């Protein structure tokens, strides 16, 4: 019983066109390279912005007691046993690195009077979550201090899709305040 018409032949060209387009998109994706690091501000430029006359770098030796406290803040042992910083006696500038999800984030913090005066994302290497570099997020750190439990004395609102990067900034801010208090 035939109720429906027989399928008409479609030109082979027409059937192959969607496949060709899809193949081209896949080829472009395969040949493209993954993103590298984004340098928003070179560390030396950050220090130059903070101080009109850049002081010589000073050193904080992360002795075992400091290592223990830093480990508590970071959740792992501190990366360096010697932490460089710049200070003019009133303010100090700290450049720290902490892994967000898989790659380290380089951030700069200016501390004055036991409180963060400025926080900047200097180098970002993750594939996503770079929203933390925007002033709208970073201004939350301005004025933040360290509570008795070595957490910030204020909450930092997260960014959807950048939870781990936000956490890394929070840890670095706490570490900068802790180091600055030594």
């Amino acid at each position, binding site marked *: 019983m035939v109720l429906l018409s027989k399928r008409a032949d479609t030109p082979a060209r027409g059937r192959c066109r969607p496949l060709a387009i899809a193949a081209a998109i896949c080829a472009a994706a395969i040949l*493209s390279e993954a993103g590298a690091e984004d340098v928003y501000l070179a560390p030396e430029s950050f220090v130059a912005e903070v101080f009109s006359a850049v002081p010589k770098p000073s050193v904080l030796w992360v002795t075992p007691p400091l290592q223990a406290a830093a480990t508590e803040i970071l959740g792992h042992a501190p990366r360096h046993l010697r932490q460089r910083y710049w200070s003019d006696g009133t303010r100090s500038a700290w450049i720290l690195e902490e892994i967000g999800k898989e790659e380290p984030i380089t951030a700069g913090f200016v501390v004055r009077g036991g409180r963060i005066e400025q926080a900047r994302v200097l180098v970002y290497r993750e594939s996503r979550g770079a929203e933390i570099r925007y002033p709208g997020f970073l201004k939350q750190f301005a004025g933040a201090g360290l509570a008795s439990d070595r957490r910030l004395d204020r909450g930092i609102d997260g960014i959807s899709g950048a939870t781990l990067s936000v956490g890394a900034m929070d840890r670095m801010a706490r570490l900068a305040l802790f180091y600055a208090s030594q």
Partner: protein
Amino acid sequence: MSALPESVVERLTSARAPAAGRGRRMRDWHGVIGVLSALSLFVLVGTGIALNHTQELGLGETEVSLPAITAWYGLRPSVPESGFKSGDTWLVASGGRWRLGASLLGDRRPAPVGIVSFGAWRCIAAADALYILQSDGRLVDRIGRDGLPAVPIQAIGVTAGAIALRAGNAVYASTDALEWKRYSNTDVAWSKAEPLPPAVRAQSAAGFAPSLPAERLVRDIHSGRILGRLGPYVVDAVACLLSVLSLTGAWMYLRSSKQRAQLARRASRIRND
């Protein structure tokens, strides 16, 4: 059930002829989209289920060292022919990993240009960074471009009580790797690359086999990032294709239902005629 007379079939099919073309095209597109997205769908389903059970499957602890996969990620397994000697210990670098003797100093490191012993420190220089380590391999400091006198660093050496770096046509020396001054004397003992003894090469070969966590691989496949920067957009496109597939399928189903109802009504009228 007996076949309808030809005259009846002609009345039925001639009324549907203009609409049949649309249906064929839709079926063709539905089929093409289904073929295009089928494999991707299976991959997404499989990797998605795996990511939902990462802990149970131990994906975070499992390392993947298949050469094809590690090569795709740019992880090179080759053991170099040369290294840098520091006392009785060799610094060997490959694929971003450093090995100092039997110790793995870390990964994601740049290619070193030399190593020197300075007091209790071991200082390893790369083109744009200086690494200072304790004798146990723990990192004391990493000095980047902002703390170096000039880059790229071409060599590292030691002179009387100071670390020396050669960058460009100048040599700089420092006693603490913080403050650098130009150094003009020629009494610097520079670190140089030397051919690795066979025993050291053999020891290094096992230590330089590249690998990456299985979770990373599964996640990159699921998100499309394994294909590079445009990979996620490919996955987005597959998701859109699946949406179109469901819409075309729904359209065909509804149309087919409507046509069956129409055929049934016509057949009923013809019998009653």
